């Protein structure tokens, strides 16, 4: 499971706070002020489900359909312009997906959609063999293949340059068979993104189960064995935020970054062919901001986790909001004045300084979420 690099201090703190497994009243009176707080979470959970999570998945499904349509156009009329259109459609689909990684629980996991769409690294050996031994790629056949020859990054590999010196690709370098494969992959992608959206809106198991969104909004009701109360839902949302902050800082960035320039490993850079890495990373944290603030960028203000935090501590709520914004800005600043891709920045002295600044900002945010925000579940008078 996605792990959190809990500091020992954080664990000790959480453990100590958890001594009695609930918000209950302290049996030994102390002179300390009562730190419990009240917050009715129903509106927040409903809003986050409908206007953030489901809205994001509906957007993803629409962009998945648009990506497939763009590949159909490319197959019908191979041209540089149509290739560029597919590249843009790929980047467009990447945005809601990466933002959605801040809440990667439920059907995206249980239906196995995450590995279908976003397996990394690729299996370029098998990919080459598949292309040289197959003609006519239908979606159902591809779905039976391994995840490391389908999804976002296989499409990226076909669509863009090698990522080393360029991310551009000429239409002359994309064979007819590769275009067919691309269209098959995009059809599979469209199907899975639609399935994910349907799981939240219609049936979580694509069968007789209820819509996952409805189940998330009604914890503790009869026959709802997913969450016993809003405490579980809020815990899930906060842990989701912590999870992606940890993964970006300590995984996606740290793994290729290495200890120094000599140990930087470009092969571990996500979205390296398209040079979309920094956009991916910042979208991950924008996804955190979506859950925290309660609305997608530009939408009207609605309740998010910030309101839960503010009910306990307004200063903390503002501080964490600032830390999220700072994490996004420092990731975006990694490219520097000369728009350096992340793949190159890890081997560049000045680039590495900018990366370290972003890592520090992510680390600070993670500590706040783990040590300040998460423990609020213990003082919340449900």
């Amino acid at each position, binding site marked *: *499971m*996605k*792990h959190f*690099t*809990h500091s*020992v201090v954080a*664990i*000790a703190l*959480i*453990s100590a*706070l*958890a*001594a*009695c*497994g*609930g918000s209950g009243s302290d049996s030994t009176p102390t002179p300390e002020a009562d730190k419990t707080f009240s917050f009715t979470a129903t509106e927040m959970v409903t809003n986050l489900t409908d206007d953030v999570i489901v809205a994001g998945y509906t957007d993803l499904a629409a962009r998945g359909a648009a990506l497939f349509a763009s590949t159909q156009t490319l197959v019908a009329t191979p041209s540089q312009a149509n290739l560029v259109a597919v590249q843009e459609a790929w980047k467009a689909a990447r945005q809601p997906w990466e933002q959605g990684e801040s809440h990667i*629980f*439920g*059907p995206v*996991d*249980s*239906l*196995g959609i995450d*590995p*279908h769409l976003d*397996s990394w*690294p690729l*299996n*370029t*050996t*098998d990919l080459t*063999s*598949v292309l040289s*031994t197959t003609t006519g790629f239908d979606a159902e056949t591809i779905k*039976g*293949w*391994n*995840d*490391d020859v389908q999804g976002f990054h296989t499409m990226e590999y076909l669509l863009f340059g090698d990522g080393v010196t360029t991310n551009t690709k000429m239409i002359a370098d994309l064979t007819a068979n590769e275009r067919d494969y691309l269209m098959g992959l995009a059809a599979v992608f469209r199907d899975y993104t639609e399935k994910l959206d349907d799981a939240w809106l219609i049936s*979580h*198991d*694509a*069968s007789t189960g209820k819509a*996952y969104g409805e*189940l998330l909004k009604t914890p503790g009701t009869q026959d709802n*064995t*997913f*969450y*016993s*109360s809003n*405490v*579980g*839902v809020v*815990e*899930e949302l906060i*842990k989701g935020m912590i999870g992606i902050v940890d993964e970006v800082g300590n995984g996606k960035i740290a793994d290729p970054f290495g200890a120094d320039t000599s140990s930087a490993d470009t*092969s571990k850079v996500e979205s390296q062919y398209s040079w979309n890495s920094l956009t991916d990373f910042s979208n991950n944290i924008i996804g955190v901001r979506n859950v925290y603030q309660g609305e997608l960028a530009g939408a009207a203000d609605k309740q998010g986790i910030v309101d839960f935090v503010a009910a306990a501590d307004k200063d903390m709520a503002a501080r964490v909001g600032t830390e999220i914004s700072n994490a996004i800005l420092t990731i975006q600043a990694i490219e520097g004045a000369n728009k350096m891709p992340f793949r190159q920045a890890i081997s560049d002295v000045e680039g590495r300084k900018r990366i370290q600044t972003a890592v520090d900002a992510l680390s600070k945010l993670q500590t706040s979420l783990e040590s300040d925000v*998460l*423990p609020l*579940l213990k003082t919340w008078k449900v």
Partner: protein
Amino acid sequence: MIIKNNKINNTNIKLNIKVSALVIASVLSLSACGGSGDETTPTPEEKVYPSYTDITASGGDTTTFDASESGHGFSTPSPNLTAAELELHLEGDLGFETAFTTAPNDAHPELDGLGPVFNNTDCNSCHQRDGRNSTPQIAAGKTRIKLGSEAGIFLRISKAPDEPCLEGTAANNYCAPIAVPDFGDQLFHRGVLKARPDWEQNKFIGQADVYLSYETKAITYSDGSSVTLKKPLFDVENPYDAPGETKSSANVTSNLLQDDVLMGWRNGMPVFGLGLLEAIPEADIVAKVDSDDANNDGISGRANYVFDAVKAQAGDSNPVSLGRFGWKANTPSVRVQSLGALRGDIGITNPLFPDESIKGTSLHDHYLTRSGFVDTGAGIDGEPEADAEFSDSVVFYAETLAVPARRRVADADVREGARLFERLNCSGCHTPSFVTKASGDIGGAEMIAGHKSQTIYPFTDMLLHDMGEGLADGRPDFLADGSEWRTRPLWGIGLTKTVNPQAGFLHDGRAATLEEAILWHGGEAQQSTDDFMALNAAERAQVVDFLMSL
């Protein structure tokens, strides 16, 4: 089907409530942590609650209270790990999520070695969020589903023995399941691109295609309400040694499709709390063995004794240990279970299991010849595909995941459910509590301090029980016969669908709900099931409420 020798007499169940007034008093005083709180007005019949009713820290000091409400409930490091132990745990966490690829992988040699045939590419796919795998759903308009990358379920296979194996010796391979010639003891339905001789027609296909379908039956309570139970069936087709063949082919030639090949589904299990289960003193488990039902309670727990690869590797002349893990208690330790799965389910050789699981089969020989011997199970250095560091960290991870704290223990329905759980004698097999040993090894390595002398509440006796015809797969496994299953721990079971909304219960995921799981209990549990069915709807719900609190 193998018939058991010792028939169980189900007629004389004695309720096993060992709660005295003294215990009640102690329970009430235990309520400091979310306990029972106010006593209700005494009723004419004083209700007696079992001693575990108000317990919250199911895993002792390893219990997590900060993730016990969400889908992270099975995925949290034990809070009592040292800094160094936590670091190793987190390293193992990465290993648990590592998806392996076909060899050779020049860019990422540390990731290659997948297969060549396998069930999934990483641990997490069968233990989603460290819990159970998703239950396959058949699409509308279809009657069956072909298992692919989404499947965390697979088939164990073996040849039917001529007679039951009663005592393991070197001569009889310690009563291990008899491998199907040219296949083995597990059916790998997936493969690397070129796994099969006919790979161009069967890309990414393993030893055979496996299809899952369901049959259903209705169970009706005396109040007229009913529950539909489903049972997964399998069809195995297109084996590599006879492409296109099925069981109904005119002339069945495949080794896999012979009539004496036994097959049974196996689901992935949750992986938290395993180090604690391994730290239960063997004597305490064996003390509960009652092979001939001497106490006449209808329950006859038996111990499985299994081949222990750790002992064998250490040169032990009798490499046999008490079986603790797996659906039939067929592995002795987390180490053997984890590294056996790494080598089997994923196809990654490791220091404990350095040979590919299909070594010596014609599939493997053909594959190696065709692929130029680049994926032999050993790297260019001659070492296994996963090194000791990776292997040890993954084992440690599985040993040290925290047990989620119980929830809603003060809820009146939960408390009534605990009382009924005891009254139905569910605890006859689902032993509530053990104390782990104070010193010693687990899996061939010294146990960590955090596992020592812990009072734990796993609700399992770790023994085998005949669960009746309905659950039987007819496939013996070491000393376990075809009807016996190891008692599943119940701790954390209420979080199952929080962790994975599509998870199912029992060895093949057939039960979508805890109520369904109870209703499948037959054999030694038949009396408890009958008594459950005799409860009214509110009481049945209370039993489930208690289970959901665990």
